[in-house]
């Protein structure tokens, strides 16, 4: 009981710190980095629903990111439709495309699924590079709107406006993931990841559940795509449909720990500042060095800790629990087990 109260206190504290962030950190570079950290947390969590919980590793999520960015931007620049509305249209488009991609490619397992998603991603990049109506390879510039009104989805002076929008998205996807872990679908996705044949023998329609996971994943990725377009005010196939986007989405989740709620957030909190700092401080002298660091990180994780940073934390927890067991009397341990049954 005490442990739960303690956790609640930490949670409230973290939320307050996050909400107050723009007020105690005014430096533009730090604010921008923080926005990117939160943005990549949302993207990592979105990827995690399909790649982590359901175990279907995708390297094509830039498709949904790009579709979100392009849909809202096109609707806004051509027809004057609010990006807030365009964001949901973009999510709808991404969900439809995720079904079209998922339906045939979910017949493929493991590496072959990953390869199919890379191919699909490249197809979209090529299409948009050659699609004149949406700006071709040049892309689209969004008009600057002054006044910093929330309804415009643009903030020229008060940059923290972007921060609060992406923070709200983070809150939403954390809530969705938290609920997912505690419903039948969450259990089913894990079962599919662990052994899809065994899952089928237990009455699980694996294609349907993988599709559900992909649809949720695609929708969240697309709304972040719209956010990115509004934040940067310029989109092009080489930025929003880039394979690098897909890879980085997977990377933040894998670094932090796939199939966990906190993993992708931790992954983004470690990876993004590192990328930003190396980019800024080494630019010109050693351009692309952050990519070398990325590569080293991937190698280190896959060799030493495939479960990611959350894996390291869990091991530490287990060790601590094992030490604690010696001191604790047995009845306490069983009471705790019973409580787990009731609560979890």
């Amino acid at each position, binding site marked *: 009981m005490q442990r739960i109260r303690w956790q609640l206190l930490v949670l409230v504290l973290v939320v307050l710190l996050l909400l107050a962030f723009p007020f105690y950190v005014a430096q533009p570079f730090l604010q921008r980095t923080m926005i990117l950290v939160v943005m990549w947390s949302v993207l990592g969590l979105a990827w995690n629903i399909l790649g982590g919980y359901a175990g279907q590793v995708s390297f094509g999520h830039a498709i949904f990111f790009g579709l979100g960015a392009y849909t809202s931007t096109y609707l806004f620049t051509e027809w004057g439709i609010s990006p807030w509305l365009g964001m949901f249209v973009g999510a709808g488009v991404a969900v439809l495309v995720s079904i079209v991609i998922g339906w045939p490619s979910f017949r493929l397992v493991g590496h072959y699924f990953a390869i199919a998603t890379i191919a699909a991603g490249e197809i979209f990049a090529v299409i948009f590079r050659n699609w004149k109506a949406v700006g071709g390879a040049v892309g689209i510039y969004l008009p600057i709107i002054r006044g910093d009104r929330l309804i415009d989805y643009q903030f020229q002076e008060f940059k923290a406006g972007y921060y609060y929008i992406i923070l709200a998205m983070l809150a939403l996807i954390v809530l969705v993931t938290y609920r997912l872990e*505690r*419903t*039948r679908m969450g*259990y*089913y996705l*894990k*079962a599919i990841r*662990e*052994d899809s*044949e*065994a*899952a*089928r*023998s*237990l*009455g*699980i*329609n*694996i294609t349907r559940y993988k599709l559900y996971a992909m649809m949720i994943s695609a929708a969240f990725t697309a709304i972040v795509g719209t956010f990115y377009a509004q934040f940067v005010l310029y989109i092009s196939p080489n930025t929003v449909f880039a394979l690098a986007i897909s890879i980085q989405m997977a990377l933040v989740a894998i670094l932090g720990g796939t199939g966990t709620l906190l993993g992708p957030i931790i992954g983004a909190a470690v990876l993004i500042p590192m990328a930003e700092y190396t980019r800024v401080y080494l630019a010109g002298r050693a351009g692309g060095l952050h990519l070398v660091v990325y590569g080293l990180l991937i190698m280190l994780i896959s060799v030493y800790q495939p479960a990611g940073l959350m894996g390291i934390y869990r091991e530490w927890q287990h060790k601590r629990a094992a030490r604690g067991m010696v001191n604790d009397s047995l009845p306490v341990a069983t009471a705790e*087990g019973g409580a*787990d*049954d009731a609560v979890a």
Partner: protein
Amino acid sequence: MPLLEIEGLTKQFGGLTANHNIHLQVEEGEILGLIGPNGAGKTTLFNCITGFYPPTRGRVRFQGRDITGWPPERVCQAGIARTFQIVRVLREMTVLENVMVGAFLRYPRVEEARRHALQILEFSGLIDRRHELARNLTIANKKRLELARALATKPRLLFLDEAMAGLNPSEINDAVAMVRKLSEQGITMILVEHVMKVIMPLAERVVVLDSGELIADDTPENIATNPRVIEAYLGEKYRATRAIH
């Protein structure tokens, strides 16, 4: 009406005929033994009935309904559950979570699935291990878990693929007791084993597969003395040497 009816089932993999024109009926409440030497086509027959392979020819009827070619998840939803010859537990999930995944089929809500799963774990003697990761169990407990998970789907018919293989004598006794308990609860069972000794005291009826053909369908006593069965198990040489003596 028999619970399960197999009519002229044939399964070919390219040029290889793994099952040839098999006819079989299983009555409600029965414990049926399915035996045969390695490579006789027992697991293939299992896979054809439970939806993992589509049969090349023939029909499978369950409770009078034609389920030929249904995918595994639909077969399970209809009331047929199975275990695997090589255990397939959900390794990174706990024992309780494994059984809950099965229970969700009939209890979509988490609390109800958990309650049902705990009952089944109590019944199958795994309750004390419910918070352990499935990968950390012994092979005997993994098999027990697989059975518990299959039971959680509330099957009418249960296929056990070599549930006793690799167990020591006391573990086999436990498994046999479990099969009896399930039978008392009215679950129809088909046990696949290639060790005859395990099947004989349990099954009321035994069918024998050899090279994809059903060569005998009889009581355990008669099966043990059936010359074709002895030949299938021990080979032509055995009969030849006996003839000389």
